[in-house]
């Protein structure tokens, strides 16, 4: 078995906030009928969490489930478990119309950490999101300047951001520029 590598192999930068590529993260696109009792049950039994509400993320240990659209969830698990979890979900949803597919390698994940207001200001420069009203427990699927992305805050002062693997370098560079020294805005502090 060869060694799997993430898009930027853990690149780091220290500017107004610390920026770090997080390495490989297991991710599954799960689509189905949120109103269906069987679907809710399958999510709960395989992942150990209740369905998250609109624009919310539910976390249980190393696993997390994020709301992406009215019929799509983003499931996060350790990278090496992704295929097994897809199989488990497909098994639990055998009689339900659904789609579960491993998209771990289609993604790159970044972590921003530092002063909470600064972390959120960096995002407010690149995403059309009300960062004054944003905090842990929420997720936004939006755009990161010119590319698609999503982000959530595991805790105050920390923000995880996911984008497509092919644009990892662009997003890393963009975050670096947006967090350059002297560009504090002072709007969210």
């Amino acid at each position: 078995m060869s060694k799997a590598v993430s898009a930027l192999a853990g690149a780091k930068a220290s500017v107004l906030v610390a920026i770090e590529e997080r390495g490989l993260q297991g991710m599954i696109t799960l689509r189905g009928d949120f109103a269906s009792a069987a679907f809710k049950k399958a999510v709960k039994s395989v992942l150990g969490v209740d369905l998250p509400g609109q624009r919310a993320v539910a976390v249980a240990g190393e696993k997390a489930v994020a709301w992406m659209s009215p019929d799509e969830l983003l499931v996060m698990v350790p990278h090496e478990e992704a295929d097994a979890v897809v199989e488990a979900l497909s098994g639990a949803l055998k009689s339900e119309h659904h789609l579960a597919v491993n998209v771990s390698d289609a993604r790159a994940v970044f972590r921003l950490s530092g002063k909470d207001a600064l972390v959120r200001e960096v995002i407010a420069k690149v995403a059309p999101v009300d960062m004054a009203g944003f905090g842990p427990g929420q997720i936004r699927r939006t755009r990161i300047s010119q590319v698609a992305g999503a982000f959530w805050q595991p805790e105050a002062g920390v923000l995880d951001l996911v984008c497509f693997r092919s644009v990892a370098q662009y997003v890393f560079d963009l975050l670096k520029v947006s967090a350059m020294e002297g560009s504090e805005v002072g709007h969210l502090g």
Partner: protein
Amino acid sequence: MSTRLSSGGRLVNRAKQVSFTFNGKRMTGYEGDTLGSALLANDQMMVGRSFKYHRPRGIVASGVEEPNALVNLGQGARMEPNQRVTTTELFDGLTATSQNHWPSLEFDIGAVNTYLWRFLPAGFYYKMFMYPRAFWKHVYEPFIRQSAGLGKAPDAETLDADLYEHFHAYVDVLVIGGGVAGLQAALSAGRAGARVMLIEQTAHWGGRAPVDGGTIDGMAPGAWVEQAVAELSGMENVKMRPRTMGAGVYDHGYVLGYERVNDHKPGAKGVRHRLWRIRAQRIVSAGGAIERPLSFAGNDLPGVMLASAVRDYIVDYGVSPGDRVVVVTNNDDAYRTALAVKAAGLQVPVILDARPNGGGALAEAAKKAGIRVENGKGIAKVKGGKRVTGVAICLQAGEGSVIEEIACDAVAMSGGWSPVVHLWSHCGGKLLWDAERAMFRPDGAKPPTDQDGEGFVVCAGNANGAMTLDAVMADATLQGAGAAAELGFKGAAAGAKGEAEAEAPMAAVWMMPQGANIKLRMKSWLDYQNDVKVSDVQLAAREGYESVEHAKRYTTLGMATDQGKLSNINGLAILSYALNQPIPQTGTTTFRPPYTPISMGAIGGAARAEVFQPIRRTSLYDWHEAQNAYWEPVGQWRRPYCYPKAGESHHDAVTREINQTRNSLGLLDASTLGKLIVKGPDAGKFLDLMYTNMMSNLAVGKCRYGLMCNENGFLSDDGVVARMDEDTWLCHTTTGGADRIHAHMEEWLQTEWWDLKVYVANVTEQWAQFAVVGPNGRKVLEKLGGMDVSKETLPFMQWAEGTLGGVKARAFRISFSGELSYEIAVPASEGRAFWDMLLKAGEEFGATPYGTEALHVLRAEKGFIMIGDETDGTVIPQDLGLDWAISKKKTDYIGKRGQERIHMVRPDRWKLVGLETLDGSVIPDGAYAVDEGKNSNGQRNTQGRVTSTYYSPTLGRGIALGIVRDGPKRMGEVIEFPKTDGTSVKARIVDPVFYDKEGAKQNV
């Protein structure tokens, strides 16, 4: 002489001197000066030449409305043209040069234009266009290009030294304008609990209230401003931002704010400008008002200024525009200027009040101060050349006979005030004509409306037509609290109380004197920046321009960078009188964002250099780069075009890559190929509708080439579909088509076929995909081992899942080259590792990576079409001989109906053929085949065109694909393709498959 006064200037810090240069001349000012106030302090009255006539022009205003004083600011990587000196904060080391003159500001050859005025009337450009074209091109245009225009564009090759960014903000109430009205509105909304943002275009809070006097809550306005700013700063729910202009109001409460973060300290860390992208539930526009000039002869001479500007320079900066200032007015407000001039120890020889009965309390105060006041009088003409030396006085009621001449250094004029209604109007707020005060003001009953049909902009203070301090404060309290209350934030309604002198009514004065003769009217300027005079607008009216929008474009009134901030109302009043119709019937031109010009840098934001545009990279990007790949952009992807070795041309590299692939083993990074998972009980049915051919009957484990069309029947995308299991299909798309086709599928599923049980996911980037091509392709995979890739187990157009070299892999037996070929997909995180294994295992076969150009030639040799080459949005599959991929059995698919239309089934459509040049050369790409005769435009008729053309190393000659009228029935005919060099190339129509027509090589 304009000069610095010995004391005064509330905004300048006399303890800190700042030096700068203007046209190379070293000058000094104080911290807190604008470039405008500093130039005046250095007696630099003349600052530029006018646009058309090159007349000497001086500073007229003290704020954003300044039309004349535009300079080239900075040098080299920081040079910027057309910067208003009145809004440029002075900093140490500033360099500015004046514009639009040659050879110098003092001596300008173009000034001869002023004597050629007869030949530069309104509509000059339009009239000249009517003359013979050659005359325009060779005579007028070079002359106009040389003489007209403002600043020079920065050097195209010099990169801007500064950085920019965007910022997204969301607020309940956005207050635009930090004068006393804006401060009060923000206080009212903030106290009620709304999330408030207050922005102000200058560096100072309080606007012009501290200059204009009166009291607020019994305090001097300046003291009240300090108190208000302190209270707002202490409110958590209120954000304040100076140096930030409200540039535009757009639908859904979207506002662009333009923050000049570092303009006053160039080179400081961080960004120069920040573009604020604000979503506001309610917008309070408190942008104040702009004073209007009066239209009298010579009103453009340096030294003629707005009355408000004269007192701004005295009070704010301690700068005198001249020892003797004549004030000319039609309202009481200008008397404040006379009093300020007097208070500074300077002279006011006379106040000319155009009103027969003169002014009120302020006029009395002026008289009491010993100033001569002449009612019912006006200026017949300003005396002077490069600056004011005096005025000739006349009766306002007359035609301009001179009663008296008075020497002076400056003229302070006031034609009344116009509320800044721009932001109100951007999204459709309507205006009322207030005849009594001669101004357009917002019609509160007709605001711009939002998504719920509710008004989302209100105006406050001057901007709302509340012109006296008492009215301003009351209105601001009402509007600020009202905006918050509409959002459910209720607070105490009490606000600060303003008090000011009672004012006598103003009188509308559009020309001075009212019966000015033509000689005077031709020297009475309306639009300083575009050199439009009273006589020009009157001429336009005589020539039939009745619409204000047409008159604007014909005369260029209000079309300059200031967008007519000073000139519009005066101009349309002149037009109305010339047309003998009321002003509201003439109406205003359209107010469009931005309020004043904003930098291109701010619009672009962070998008420059490495983040100008995203570049999509496959897992092999670094490897390609290390191999010296020559890149080709494909959508946002970068793909290797070829891999030239040292000293090798691209052509030779492509030839080598093709030969090696046909003869032994070629490897291609095909990761960019689109991959869509389509799953569900109705997936087969759905795909039968999306593709022209059947996909529902594809057996699990098999692959099929499919075509997708748009609703009109035109070919949109193609690719191989593989069936994964009972209800899952994997659809490959073109590289550029992945996102587009994904969206296309989602659109149909969400809007038309929402009853189909189908989910789609785009997994393009999950997989690194490599084409392993050539006679030794199977051997190299067998060396890696792990799954059976033999002809028996994995025949052509089948796929299988397993492992190769220990990596989880999917192997597709598909070929886009005509060779034995596999496409191997592995997880992207292991793509690079797997590629390295392929290279190593392929070493003994001379494994050769090939790029997109070799890919194109290989497919063209086989006659395979390429989306974007053989298709251009006007080509249906039937044109390309793809009838075999169109199901005749299906009742419907997207495009079926379109393909049945008469034009699509015409027998003489241009259809795909191969083209072989008689001389073996390569036909230029896009060349047309000519036919006999000419069309109605006198152009040669055509009968076909080249869609792909290459040198084929395999065949040793030029080959091409093209579409030719009724081509497939004309095999063997020779047609002619003219080239751009005047020669032409002849080609024989042949079968589009040039190589291995039987498919023997791929089917092994």
